[in-house]
Structures are given as C-alpha cells and as structure tokens.
C-alpha cells in the first residue's frame, strides 16, 4: 500500500510540475486533421491475417483533437504450432479505439481508450500521455502511462476464465540536433500480472512409451513479467531532399529474454508526386529461462514453454514502399491526399525450435530447425482535410 501511494504521489508530482511550466509564445501543435483507410495482409508460416483499419483525427476549438480507430484482424491459421497439436482454425479480432488530445501552450495531454475482442480474448486499455516542448522547441519530452485489463477464455472449455493486468510506463525525448538531424530516445517498462501463456499451446517432453518418442503437456508460464525496452532513433535530411533514418532498441525482461533490434532506411521523393522508400531491419533474441524445444521428462520444472516467440531466433526484414500524392493543391474540402503501398519480406530463423511436423521416424531432438518467411502488404489512402 505504501509503495502504491508513493508511486502515485511521484506521478502526480510529475504532472503538476509539467502543468506549472510557463506557457510561451511558441506553441506545441495538435495532430493534423486526417483520415486513413488501410488494408493489411500478412501471409507466412501457415498463417494468413488480413483486414481493414480506419483512423480519423479531427480538431475542435483549436485546443482539442479527437481520434477514432477501427481495426480488424481476420485470422486463418495452420501455423506449425497449430498443425502439430491442434486443428487449423479461423477467427476474427476487432479493435476500437477513441482518444482525445488537449493542447495548452507548449504542452499536449492525451487520453486514449481501446477495446479489442476475439472469441476467446478481450483486452481493454486506457492510456494517459503528455508531451512538453522545451528549449525553444528544440526538445520534446513525453511521458505516458497505460493500464490494461484482459479477460482470457478458451474455446471448448466453458469453465476456463482467466485475467491479465497490464501496465506500461513510457518516457521519450525528441531532440533537434542540427538543421538536418533529429534524434529521439525512448524508454518503456511494461509489467504484466495474471494468465500470460496461450491456453492452446503445449510443450513436448521425452516419453519412450510413446510411438514417436515424445508426448505433450500444457505449457505453464510464470504469472508475472516485467520488461524494459530502450530505443534510440535518428533521422537525417540529405541536401537533395531525401532522408536517411535509423534506430536501435535493446530489450530485457524478467523471463530471461534479451533482444536487439536495428533498422536503417532511406526515403526518396521525386520531383513529381511520387515518394519511394526502402528499409532493412534486424531482430535477434535469446530464449526465456523456462523455454525448451524438448524437455527431458514430464513436468521437468515448474514453468514450461515451447512458444517459438520465446525461443532463440533472429529475423531480418526488407521493406519497399511507394506513395503517390494527389490533390496537391487541394480539391473541395480536401487539402491533399496520398495513396501508399508497403511490402515487407520477413525471414525468421530459429536456433532451438525444431520443425516436428511430418517427422515420424526422426529421433526426438534431431528434427530440422524451423524457419519461415512472411509477406506483409499494406495499401492505404490518406486524406488531409
């Protein structure tokens, strides 16, 4: 209780401090009035997910900006995890979000709420954020807090009902370094408590009595997890009007996972209405302490996982993108618009997750390591009004 009061007192002190900052003639800005309609499609590893996303932002009374987002994932899955222990399935996830941002001098304050629903998972998230421009607007400091309440159920098991509590603490700093260079740093700590594993997934263990030499049991994760991620990004303006950008991120958590992410990209607008871009991204992580592809025996330890997302792996991705601007001088109520297309090719290579599908006769633990590639498409239209 003392910790709780102390933590909220610290948060309140930060808010009061920022609210009390002197207001100046240089003002922060609200997001532009804009509508985006996106179609997304992910195909890879036996999984196909597609659907729309609609995001609309509108300012009111020069002080408020309201945003609404409607997002759908239509999932059709026959992934390696599903093929080896369950049956392919289809499901839909819908997410609705509402937000409001209030501008006061050089500060913005935002409140957001989102609800995500699947037939076996409901997630509610409330967020508060603030940002403050400082030092002649060379620096922007932002702080954020989110709280999430999830309800987990299981298809075919009417009694199964679990809850998850999520909290996220964020801090960010954006800094203009020169006339051509801007950098930003971010820090995010997330804590989860409750049911954190997937109710459908299993681990495998050596079982000589079984025909193929192994059997399955339900996975079991710890009921708490705290993670920290720190990022550093930079964007540089090239003299012939193009931009180079890059970023790194380091991650660690209480489950023993550490990861590094690196990305570099290039944006090239033509003299006409086209803009082309490309980027490459690397991601690598170490496994969770309680992960194993094959445990020596049933209930070998108190926590058990065989989720490939918790294994040791690397992934690389390449993005190609093109945008076409239309109505550049405006058309009726439209100030400008653009049509955008992004294609990402992603490759995943696992170091300790084996492909056990259709491997009868192969001794357990000697199956080939798993890898897969994914194609991700996004096409969206944006209109500023």
């Amino acid at each position, binding site marked *: 209780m003392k910790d709780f009061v102390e933590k909220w007192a610290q948060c309140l002190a930060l808010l009061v401090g920022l609210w009390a900052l002197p207001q100046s003639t240089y003002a922060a800005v609200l997001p532009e009035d804009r509508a985006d309609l996106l179609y997304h499609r992910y195909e890879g590893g036996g999984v196909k997910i597609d659907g729309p996303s609609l995001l609309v932002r509108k300012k009111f009374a020069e002080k408020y900006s309201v945003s609404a987002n409607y997002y759908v994932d239509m999932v059709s899955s026959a992934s390696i995890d599903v093929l080896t222990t369950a049956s392919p399935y289809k499901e839909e996830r819908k997410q609705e*979000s509402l937000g409001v941002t209030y501008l006061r001098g050089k500060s913005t304050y935002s409140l957001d709420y989102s609800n995500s629903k699947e037939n076996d998972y409901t997630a509610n998230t409330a967020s508060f954020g603030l940002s403050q421009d400082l030092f002649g607007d060379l620096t922007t400091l932002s702080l954020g807090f989110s709280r999430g309440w999830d309800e987990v159920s299981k298809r075919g098991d009417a009694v199964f009902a679990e809850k998850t509590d999520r909290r996220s603490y964020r801090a960010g700093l954006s800094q203009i370094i020169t006339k051509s260079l801007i950098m930003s740093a971010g820090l995010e700590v997330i*804590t989860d408590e409750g049911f954190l594993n997937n109710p459908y997934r299993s681990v495998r263990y050596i079982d000589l009595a079984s025909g193929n030499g192994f059997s399955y049991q339900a996975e079991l994760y710890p009921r708490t997890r705290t*993670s920290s991620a720190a990022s550093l990004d930079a964007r540089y303006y090239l003299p012939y009007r193009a931009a180079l950008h890059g970023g790194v991120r380091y991650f660690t958590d209480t489950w023993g996972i550490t990861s590094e992410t690196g990305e570099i990209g290039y944006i090239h607008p033509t003299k006409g209405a086209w803009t082309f871009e490309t980027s490459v991204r690397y991601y690598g992580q170490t496994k969770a302490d309680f992960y194993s592809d094959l445990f020596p025996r049933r209930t070998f330890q108190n926590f058990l996982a065989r989720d490939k997302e918790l294994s040791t792996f690397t992934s690389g991705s390449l993005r190609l993108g093109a945008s076409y601007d239309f109505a550049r001088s405006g058309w009726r109520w439209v100030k400008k618009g653009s049509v955008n297309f992004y294609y990402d090719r992603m490759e995943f290579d696992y170091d300790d997750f084996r492909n056990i599908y259709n491997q009868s006769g192969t001794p357990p633990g000697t199956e080939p390591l798993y890898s897969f590639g994914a194609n*991700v498409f996004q096409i969206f239209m944006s209109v500023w009004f």
Partner: protein
Amino acid sequence: MHIMRDPYIIRRRAVIAGALLTAMALSGCGHIEPWVKPYERAALADPIMSMDPNPVSSAYTHHVYEAREGARGALGGAGGGCGCN
C-alpha cells in the same frame, strides 16, 4: 531471482529516470538559447523528416512485430490482443 531483474527495482528506476528528465527540463527551461532557430527548420519540417509520418501504418507494423517477437515496448503505440498462434 536475479536482483537486476527484480520488477520492483526496474519500475523504481523507470520512475527515477522520468523524475530526473523532468527535473532537468524544469531547471533548464528558458535559459538555453536555441542553436537551431525557427527559420532554420525548413528541412526538419519536411514531411519526409517526420518520425511517424503514417500512424495507421506504424501501428499495424508494430502489431506484426509484437505478435512474432518476444520483445515489446519502445516502438510507439500499438493495439492489444494477439492473433499470434
């Protein structure tokens, strides 16, 4: 559990880091002469220099990463739910 991974210590460090950033900001506010003047920021105002030019697209991209990878956070806002079987 290793002390470096103690959730209480990690949370406390995050709060202290936030408080320090704010204190630095408060103490320096109004005393630093901007070394890039407002009229020198034409390049920085170009849409190609925006850190998040298309929020609808970046939210989706972050969701794809967070569903396939063990890491999370410090990517900007992304939705809840999983869709990751």
